[in-house]
């Protein structure tokens, strides 16, 4: 079985969880004897290609003589996007949309018969244009590569997937890691992104959602036929090195790690902190990360008068995160909407007990975690207090949690995916 997979990023150069998930999934597929050709806008050459073949879209020559190419080109509308926007969209960001039916680029194309597009592969200002060009290149790749199935990750690559399907007539599987409903609230929702997502979902023969939560959004908010939407929970890539516990920390530490944005629910973390601190003088709360709600959060902490025991670290790199996990006694993820949410798994792997919101995809697969509603700060405070004060509970989570995380393997996810693929292929 051969899969042509469209992604946007791949380790080591990644901006978010998407690249990590793609890496894990492709490694898992390789173990299940599925050949993967992974296409990304711009490969750097240092990606791990031992198990899969990587194609950089920037290196693909387009033969512009094909008529479908022009047909598609005409249909496409351009969108300009503010550079900080995607995929980590914030409340204060905005979209600037311009419809350009005829572009200078198109005329360019008419002159020569063959050309290449250069992709940045980032989430930059010309993102929508790159999305479109990526689709054009996808057509070219689909014409030349040998494959049985097309698999496209998130809306950035859906057009590429659709194009590849049009050219090859092979079944299309799209993978939804997040939807516009997770990235934004109802006031900042982007119609264009929503439409691109919906277009991809409608064109797909099968849809993989990273959680039941996301699956329900796909069915309810995008009106997709439930029978073709499958839940495919993420797994974790085995850790290279153990996170070391930092001894001699004079305080108990409760940690939040993530973007400081509306969807991550940082304000619930702060209100909870206030409740716990009133009864426990030896606890410190740490909010690690940055985002558009940062200033408001700092103000709130000052307002509550807990700034002496509440710390903001700003953005942390990988080593610093490991260090923080090594010091933490509880990890809290109060997300309002989280399609999956890989960070609690990383905390559990570092022996840190976790409290997570029920509104997260990861809560569907975890048993050794305390799950609360994101808005229920009393329950969240009870959970944190319980873990800090009843050592049996902390030890229980530290041990069982780690075992549980280690049992979540991409190999198993890929096996399930292989089954979905098989159901799409014509029977021999």
């Amino acid at each position, binding site marked *: 079985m051969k899969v042509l997979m469209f992604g946007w990023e791949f380790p080591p150069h990644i901006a978010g969880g998407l690249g990590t998930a793609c890496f894990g999934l492709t490694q898992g597929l390789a173990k299940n004897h599925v050949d993967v050709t992974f296409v990304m806008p711009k490969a750097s050459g240092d990606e791990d290609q031992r198990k899969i073949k990587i194609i950089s879209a920037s290196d693909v020559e387009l033969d512009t003589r094909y008529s479908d190419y022009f047909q598609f080109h005409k249909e496409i509308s351009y969108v300009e996007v503010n550079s900080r926007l995607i995929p980590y969209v914030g409340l204060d960001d905005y979209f600037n949309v311009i419809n350009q039916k005829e572009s200078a680029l198109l005329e360019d194309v008419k002159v020569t018969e063959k050309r290449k597009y250069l992709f940045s592969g980032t989430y930059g200002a010309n993102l929508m244009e790159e999305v479109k060009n990526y689709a054009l290149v996808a057509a070219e790749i689909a014409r030349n590569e040998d494959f049985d199935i097309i698999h496209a990750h998130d809306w950035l690559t859906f057009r590429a997937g659709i194009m590849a399907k049009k050219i090859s007539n092979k079944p299309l599987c799209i993978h939804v890691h997040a939807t516009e409903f997770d990235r934004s609230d109802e006031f900042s929702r982007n119609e264009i992104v929503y439409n691109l997502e919906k277009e991809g979902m409608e064109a797909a023969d099968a849809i993989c959602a990273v959680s039941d939560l996301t699956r329900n959004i796909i069915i309810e908010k995008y009106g997709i036929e439930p029978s073709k939407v499958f839940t495919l929970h993420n797994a974790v890539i085995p850790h290279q090195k153990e996170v070391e516990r930092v001894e001699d920390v004079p305080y108990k530490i409760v940690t939040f790690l993530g973007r400081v944005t509306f969807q991550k629910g940082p304000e619930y973390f702060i209100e909870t902190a206030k*409740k716990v601190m*009133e*009864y426990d003088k030896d606890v410190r709360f740490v909010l690690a990360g940055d985002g558009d709600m940062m200033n408001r959060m700092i103000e709130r902490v000052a307002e509550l008068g807990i700034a002496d025991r509440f710390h903001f670290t700003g953005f942390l790199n990988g080593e610093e995160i490991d260090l923080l996990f090594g010091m933490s006694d509880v990890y809290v993820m109060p997300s309002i909407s989280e399609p999956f949410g890989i960070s609690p798994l990383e905390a559990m792997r570092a022996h840190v007990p976790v409290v997570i919101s029920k509104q997260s995809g990861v809560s569907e697969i975890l*048993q050794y975690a*305390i*799950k*609360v509603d994101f808005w229920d700060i*009393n*329950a969240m*405070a*009870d*959970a944190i*207090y*319980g873990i800090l*004060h*009843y*050592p*049996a*509970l902390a*030890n*229980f989570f530290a041990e069982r949690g780690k075992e549980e995380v280690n049992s979540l393997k991409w190999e198993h996810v890929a096996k399930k995916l292989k089954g979905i693929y098989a159901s799409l292929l014509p029977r021999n």
Partner: protein
Amino acid sequence: MRKICFHFQISQPYRLRRYHFFDINKHHNYFDDFQNSYLVKRLADFCYLPANKMFLDLLKKYEDISLSFSISGDSIQLFKEHAPEVIESFKELIATNRVEIVGNTFSHSIASLYGKDAFMHQIKKQEKQLKEVFDVTPVSFCNTELIYSDEIGEWLAEAGYKVVLTEGARHILAWKSAGYLYCNPFQTNLKVLMRNYNLCDDITLRFQNKSWEHYPLTADKYLSFLNNIPHDAPYINLFMDYETIGEYHTKESGIFDFFYHLFVQIAERKELSFMLPQDVAKEEDSVLTIHVPWAMSSSSDEKDTNEWLGNELQQEAFEQLFKLENLYKESKNENAKMNWLRLQAADHFAFMSTKWFAETSVKRNFDVYPSPYQAFINYMNVLNDVKLQLEKKK
């Protein structure tokens, strides 16, 4: 003639409310009064009162019929508070002289898994209550969830009991049958009646199971089951939760009709005779010893104590609870003392169980916690306050 022994258990606990850590040392009302009142009233209406009425009718109609009950002290307290008519209704049953009230722990306690003192205290407290409320002195004993071991049997013998009801656990009986009369190996005066759990599960677990080959279960069909077990074993012991009638299986399922006709048929056919646990107290012939070196119970398939003490959380809560035993003895705070007893209820520990398949147990119906961890945290918060209260007014 073979003998059939019916025993029904009632063990409603005081259920805890959501007790936050910031309530510790501030509020001492740990119980969910609404939930407790609602459940007891519902059970009274759906189960205890109509079932008692049915049995009273049967007892009046057939003079051979007899049956036994164990009612925990907490349940009696809850009846007093929320459904006093249930107590009156039991008094009517007892007045027939063919209903035996069997001893048990005061608060559906698992103290027998901790130690003699705590356990004996629970028994004595319950004896006092049974004397006060029903004017009875039990000679038979049915421990919480049929928990039993040789050691527990010795304590019971010391407390003056003659008969104990327990599980016919496969790992204890091996090739032996639950249908014989056994005795404690060290206190041979203590008779041991062993439950035929397959026959009980046919009713409690499978009565409404449509995929079961014997569905629907009728009294006639059930009598044929009783007839099919080897006739040389003289006893058929059926012990079950009283809530089986009307709660686990609602009236609409036909459970009342089933029991009514079962009792009528047994009484009329005269192939089996009704027996009370106390009837075997003086039995001397063909009594065999049964060794139970470790505690067993009626819990799920394993018949062990893992439902209450299977994980580290349960063990921790258990340990912290009984650490307060001396504090309890010294304390003069009667409220706090009562609460400490109530925290011994098996139910609190079952809610902390991480045997995930435990949800198949009918008792999970009453589980109010989102997870075992929250059950643990809530319990520990309450326990911490009880400790403070016990310490305060020594």
